[in-house]
């Protein structure tokens, strides 16, 4: 194709969107039947490059619409509107075990979407594309305020939606990797929920004293939300992933201080010493470390460490005492935690206790452990720094990319509905039906 006279047009709408918004990618005025590759390139904060691509054939009027036309090959295939984002993977030659996570949520992810001639699979960086545009993907909507919280010895960040409020509140907990991870909380604030991202493993107070936090640490975080003038004190929920679910369930069932309106547990379990805080939970997990398996690719599989589900009630949260709606999200290929087995046991406990109407379980075949906000790339395994050994090793999370990405999209949608219905509505907690989901 004559580059000088190339009139191919590439349009991506919206050019600036939230991370969980869909976009439309349109190629127009290509020659009829033209073979082309639509390519996405992202350079992350760590300096690594990620790419995804799909092979398309223009129709008789020279158009390719990624939301309607099938990709014939590449990092994704079939009709996949958001494939160029969820199938992003490190470019060839990258170091192994990478995971894409945004740490600075105040600036967007920039993705360059380009069109290349022909059906290509490599060497994109050595070629000049026919056209390219830049797309911004934001974890924070305009007007969301980011407020670092350091009082009461907490290491946390509060995200407030724009507007007068008052807003429902949410405590947001990540897992065993620690750090203060803000992106899910900022995204939830972009949906109208005042969200507090809390570091409870590598917080400043832990680094200084050398001791793990106790349960009061979480209650203090709850109080910060409850007493905030723009937060509706009786509409506070809690969301945890992985180790964060252990804390969430413990607080939801046993805390006298925290009156949670609802809770969400992603890829977690209810097995833990009922008495005891973070330190005891971690010790409990480590006692069966010898049950760790290694995959053929030398990745660590941890799911057996917490199995079998104990019958001893001193080692699992008494789910029968739960009084608020609970959404449990499980990946059936989770190689890190036995989330499926735990979900089944929780359901059984609640059925026996008569409060199973509070429980909703979303179980996704071929989804792994890291069920994140949608359209972010799937990491089947990645480098993980264990707090116990302080070593970095490659851990198997599980999941098959396309199915895992579909699970992320569906789970996020349902999570938002669950939170909105339970934190906003005027009905009594526990009566919200999710049967329409």
């Amino acid at each position, binding site marked *: 194709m004559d580059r000088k006279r190339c*009139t191919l047009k590439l349009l991506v709408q919206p050019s600036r969107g939230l991370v969980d918004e869909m976009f439309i990618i349109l190629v127009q005025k290509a020659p009829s039947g033209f073979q082309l590759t639509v390519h996405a390139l992202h350079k992350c904060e760590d300096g690594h490059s990620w790419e995804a691509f799909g092979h398309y054939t223009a129709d008789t009027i020279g158009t390719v619409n990624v939301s309607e036309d099938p990709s014939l090959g590449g990092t994704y295939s079939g009709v996949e509107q958001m494939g160029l984002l969820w199938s992003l993977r490190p470019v060839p030659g990258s170091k192994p075990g990478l995971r894409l996570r945004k740490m600075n949520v105040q600036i967007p992810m920039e993705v*360059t979407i380009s069109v290349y001639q022909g059906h290509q699979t490599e060497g994109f960086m050595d070629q*000049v594309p026919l056209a390219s545009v830049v797309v911004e993907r934001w974890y924070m909507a305009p007007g969301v305020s980011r407020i670092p919280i350091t009082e009461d010895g907490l290491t946390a960040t509060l995200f407030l939606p724009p507007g007068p409020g008052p807003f429902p509140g949410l405590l947001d907990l990540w897992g065993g990797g620690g750090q203060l991870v803000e992106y899910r909380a900022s995204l939830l604030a972009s949906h109208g929920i005042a969200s507090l991202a809390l570091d409870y493993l590598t917080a400043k107070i832990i680094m200084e004293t050398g001791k793990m936090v106790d349960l009061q640490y979480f209650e203090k975080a709850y109080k910060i939300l409850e007493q905030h003038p723009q937060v509706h004190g009786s509409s506070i929920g809690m969301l945890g992933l992985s180790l964060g679910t252990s804390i969430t369930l413990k607080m939801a069932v046993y805390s006298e201080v925290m009156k949670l309106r609802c809770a969400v547990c992603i890829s977690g379990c209810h097995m833990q010493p009922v008495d005891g805080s973070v330190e005891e939970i971690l010790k409990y997990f480590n006692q069966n470390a010898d049950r760790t398996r290694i995959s053929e690719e030398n990745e660590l599989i941890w799911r057996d460490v917490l199995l079998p589900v104990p019958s001893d009630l001193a080692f699992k949260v008494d789910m029968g005492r739960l009084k608020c709606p609970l959404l449990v999200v499980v990946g059936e290929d989770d190689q890190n935690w036995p989330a499926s087995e735990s979900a089944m046991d929780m359901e059984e406990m609640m059925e026996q206790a008569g409060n199973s109407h509070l429980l909703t379980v979303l179980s996704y075949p071929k989804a792994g452990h890291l069920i994140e906000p949608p359209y972010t790339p799937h990491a089947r395994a990645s480098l993980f720094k264990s707090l116990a050994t302080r070593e970095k090793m490659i851990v198997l999370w599980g999941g098959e990319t396309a199915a895992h990405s579909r699970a992320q999209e569906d789970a996020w949608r349902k999570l938002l509905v669950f939170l909105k219905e339970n934190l906003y509505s005027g009905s009594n907690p526990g009566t919200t039906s999710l049967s329409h989901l």
Partner: protein
Amino acid sequence: MIVTLRLSTMSPPTSPILSVQPTRGLVDEKLKVVVESLPPGSPVTLHSLHHSEDEDYWEAFGHYVSDFRGMVSVSEDLSFGGTYTGKEDMGLLWSMRPVPGSRKGLRLRKMNVCSPMLHNISVYSGHVSEGFREQTPLTSVLVERWYMAPGVKRIDIMEKGVRGTLFIPPGPGPFPGLLDMWGGGGGLIEYRSALLASHGYVSLAMDYFNSQELESADLEFKYFETAFNIIKEHPQVIPDRVGMFGLSLGSLVTMHVAAESTIVKPRCCICVSGSHFYPRDRTIKEVIMEPRSNSHRLRIDENNHHVWRDMWIHLLDDPSKKVDVGKINCPILLVNGKDDQNVPADECAEDIALLMNAAGNGHLLSRVLYPDTGHLIEPPYSPHFRASNFKAAGVATKTVMLLWGGQTKPHSDAQEDAWRKILSFLQHNLYSSTPPRAKL
């Protein structure tokens, strides 16, 4: 007896939910504003507030009533009052005006295009018409409106005496180019160029008043030719696809260069609200000062606004005072408002058509004339002002309140329609591979 304990003593929030899409968009993109979870049949006010770079506050508002589902959709429902009425999906932007108590004669223009315009869109209970700042809205969101798409590059140009800003679309190119010129207020106004680059055109916004050395008409003419060539010779520009775009005085310069230059051959021209009164051997300063020699034709209306349109009309009868439009040999689009109080755009367009038809190049001319539309035909959804403070650049005059003309609603409709036609004209003449044609 069973006592049921409620878990909470206060009911959870039931505030309405306001959603505005997109929250970050280009200034020429439409907004979808929807309010849900209102009580059915309740009166609400949708309000938009903008704090300008000059520190003034601008606002717009519409009065709505929620339907049986408790919903208001600005693109579907009627506003019953406020700064706009009827079914107006973009009324919250184009009907903005300075809040009560503001300075007079304000004009809203974005000077820093690297940051967005911020609008606070809020929902108030009831039909409110004033005192918005003293009340708390039910809910509000912040919306960003950008003149620059992501990936557009902004480059300061200071080359061969030409001062301006070049905007380059993302991607390898090569792209068609545009020389973008504003009017007699001078300065370096970048927003239209940034927006044009966001649509795929390498665009040079030019400041043509600052050079002290432009004392002769010849030097001045060369300045425009040089600027045109800077674009044409840029490695990412297709050399035979460079056009010119001007408003008001810029429009005049565009016609002048298109007609008289032997060096520069624009592929097409867009002239918004321009006249054709520009003799070959005069400088811009002389052109601006020309009507002042007829200051008895200056009218000052009942609001103390200066009306300039009549100061030019006598020039229509003097061929030596007009651009020789018969020599233009590229497609040219004239966009004018019938209520232009600054320049007799209507009469000029008629005269241009007559002259071009007589010369045999009338097939190159397209014209659009909008009723009740004034002089400042800007990119869509920007607020309309019938008059504003104006100080002519480069000449020793004082600031006056100039009457531009136009009625807000028709003028805003014209801006939206004109922009669509302009983009279509540019797409056809600068992007399409078929030979250029004048007709839209």
